[in-house]
């Protein structure tokens, strides 16, 4: 099963937020096709360190596709060409010997570059802080089974809740919109009885925070859904639009 390939990498290097960046080219030989994309970058960094050069900064953590920390724009696609895959789960067997691979950071006004391939996604936290929660304090809660939830609704809420907050949706969108991210959270709570009390306020607060933070508008291109590593459906955006409109009508 195992075989090795030689590849050329064009990687975005940028020393800091205010510094001009550029592509650097690296040749890498003998990469096992069983290694993951990030393990390939580890090999490159190990080589750079051996050559006493500064390694490439990139974000990564769990390497099992769930923490949402990794995010690279690979050959023009967030997380690469594989569907429903995060960069850490992309494997080198998807590339051919002799391939040239272009690697860039997320590019969006909402996510400024910190260094090389690392961007600041703090805006997502701010959107959640604006209303992405159910306002319950710890303790004094009735029994878990006191709130029955129809199975199909729980499942649909779970589909939305599986968002990993990686930002691929924003990176994929030509408008740099964060609608899929916001919709996933609004939709999760709109589908559950626990989310009803603050339903209208939540939709308004999260959308207004998103706008304030410089994310673009949604023009329904569907690029976010296509690139989402968790395949979150744009039907949640439709639900968010309904939630937002009905909240506004109630004003």
């Amino acid at each position, binding site marked *: 099963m*195992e075989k090795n390939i030689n590849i050329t990498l064009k990687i975005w290097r940028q020393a*800091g937020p205010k510094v001009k960046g550029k592509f650097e080219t690296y040749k890498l030989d003998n990469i*096992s096709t069983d*290694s*993951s994309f*990030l*393990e*390939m970058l*580890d090999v490159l960094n*190990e080589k*750079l*360190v051996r050559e*006493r*050069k*500064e*390694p490439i*900064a990139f974000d*990564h*953590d*769990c*390497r*099992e*596709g*769930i*923490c*949402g*920390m990794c995010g690279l724009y690979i050959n023009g696609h967030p997380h690469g060409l594989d569907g429903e*895959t995060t960069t850490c*789960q992309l*494997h080198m*067997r998807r590339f051919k010997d002799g391939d040239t691979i272009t690697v860039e950071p997320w590019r969006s006004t909402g996510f400024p570059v910190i*260094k090389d391939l690392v961007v*600041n996604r*703090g805006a*997502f*936290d701010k959107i*959640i*802080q604006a*209303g*992405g*929660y*159910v*306002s319950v304090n*710890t*303790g004094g*809660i009735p*029994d*878990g*089974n006191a*709130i*029955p*939830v129809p*199975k199909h609704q729980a499942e649909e*809420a*779970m589909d939305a*809740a*599986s968002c990993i*907050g990686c930002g691929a949706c924003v990176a994929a969108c030509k408008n740099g919109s964060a609608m899929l991210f916001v919709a996933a959270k609004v939709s*999760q709570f709109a589908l559950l009885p*626990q989310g009803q009390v603050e339903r209208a306020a939540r939709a308004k607060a999260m959308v207004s925070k998103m706008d304030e933070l410089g994310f673009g508008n949604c023009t329904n291109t569907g690029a976010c859904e296509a690139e989402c590593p968790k395949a979150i459906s744009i039907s949640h955006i439709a639900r968010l639009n309904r939630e937002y409109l009905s909240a506004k009508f109630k004003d």
Partner: protein
Amino acid sequence: MTKKQATSQTEAPIIDAKIPEGSLAEKWTNYKAHQKLVNPANKRRLDIIVVGTGLAGASAAASLAELGFNVLNFCIQDSPRRAHSIAAQGGINAAKNYQNDGDSVYRLFYDTLKGGDYRAREANVYRLAEVSNSIIDQCVAQGVPFAREYGGLLDNRSFGGAQVSRTFYARGQTGQQLLLGAYSALSRQVGKGSVKLYTRYEMLDVVVIDGRARGIIARNLVTGKVERFSAHAVVVGSGGYGNAFFLSTNAMSCNGSAAIQMYKKGAFFANPAFAQIHPTCIPVHGEFQSKLTLMSESLRNDGRIWVPKKKEDAEAIRQGKLKPTDLKEEDRDYFLERRYPAFGNLVPRDVASRAAKERCDAGYGVGNTGLAVYLDFEDSIKRLGEDVVRARYGNLFQMYEKIVDDNPYKTPMMIYPAIHYTMGGIWVDYELMTTVKGLFCIGEANFSDHGANRLGASALMQGLADGYFILPYTIQNYLADQIRVPRFSTDLPEFEEAEKQISEKIKRIMSIQGKRSVDSIHRELGLVMWDFVGMGRNKEGLEHALERIKEIRKEFWSNVYVPGKSEDMNNELEKALRVADFIEIGELMARDALLREESCGGHFREEYQTEEGEALRNDDDFAFASCWKFNGEGEEPTLFKEMLEYEFVKRQQRNYKA
């Protein structure tokens, strides 16, 4: 050596965990009834630092802020939601007895204590079982989308080490959903301004003034600047130290540095040798490998574990001449079902791991390395249909296929044990306070509840129990005396000294300019740990490991190379600081494993086993938690003991056979 140790052991001073009076069921209630509290006006005047935003850290930070304290919360990732709790797959235990299958608080307590091979503290484990039900209620109220039955009520599944179904789950992403619940509660407090959040910050030291923890030194990972933060109390929930093994199921940034900093400032490190090897991980496949991926224990509900019965078949499979699906039922050895008929594939993790190792060591392993066993879903697919199996485990199967490029619906998965969790950690008393006043430790970072082995779906339970329901009470008993203490200036000499030492340490690492990359040294340490401080340990191997670790320490401090500048985002420097501490942890683990001349839970000393190859405990000499006190760089640590006196449960040889 052995003799000397034996004497030093019997002379070891005893430490007291301050367990409340009363029967098991009354202790926590009694404690809460009599503890000191802080009134709302005074809470506003008290600052608490919480390090970590995993299940324990985020739930603690949120709950403390809800009570009215000022909270400063730190995480090393770019967002609190990335903490490694997010990767927990299978579920969370609670004693709800919704399935009417005979569960109770006592049974959850008993299973956890037994699962931990009777090396946990009775009173803590009982309290954990007691608050487990409130955790489920809390998470449901937050909007965590747990799996449901058709009637709309919560669904459960079974997990290793239990004969009831008490595990609540959200597909194979339970950790993610629980963490996002805690993260949402935390975010609500950040939005209100009651929690100040510091992302991409790494704690590098704890500052102690007059014997009390009063702050931390942390490095801003974006600018590289070393900064000071003060508070009335410090809470650390920084996770486990499994990455001392280099390859583990932990995330890349998981580390034991906060634990080592606490240890060096006077907190005792308890049971460092107790590390859990998880039986169901994707086997190691290459040198470039950066981490190991766990396949949830929940898979053992429907998957059957086996190896070929005949050595020649195993050999043929390793050479690629035979496929597992070619082997007939009678040529397969379902070794867990054979050895442990009562629990079968659902024996606890340590038992399952050792059984797999035993088969592979005996020459029956599969995969091209011979270090793998099968986890087979053929029977379940026949019994339930592929759709049901897909609904239960779809995301796990997909993950497996992406990594291995094999379809587990068609051919059995290959699995092998890997380091997954550390039961050992910073010693805490009943109030979760370390031996340093005002320094608390929660979640995986402490040692408290799992003894020598943790049962599946209990890590999430403990993290959230500590953060939501225990620490917010016990910390008040400490803070009640502190209401008149004004806020601290970070200009105090203790802060200055701590910062100076950290800056010098960083300077020293940067100036070595040697020939070895950080990873290459870390990998070398990991191999020593796996070979000699891993699943099977013995005196000779552990002594060898201690020698090797000394050499590795020397190599690190004389030959590591860290490129770039320290006042910049510098991932190599971050890793170097962590590896320096993993070396210390590795040494502590080996030392502790050498001391413990018995086998219990995840700690298996080859010299101490039954004729059937099961762990042989020695309750007469080792029914204690070994707590290590730091005595200075290059000095031997001192052993303290917390005697684990069982008032309510009789210790037995663990039996999963009948």
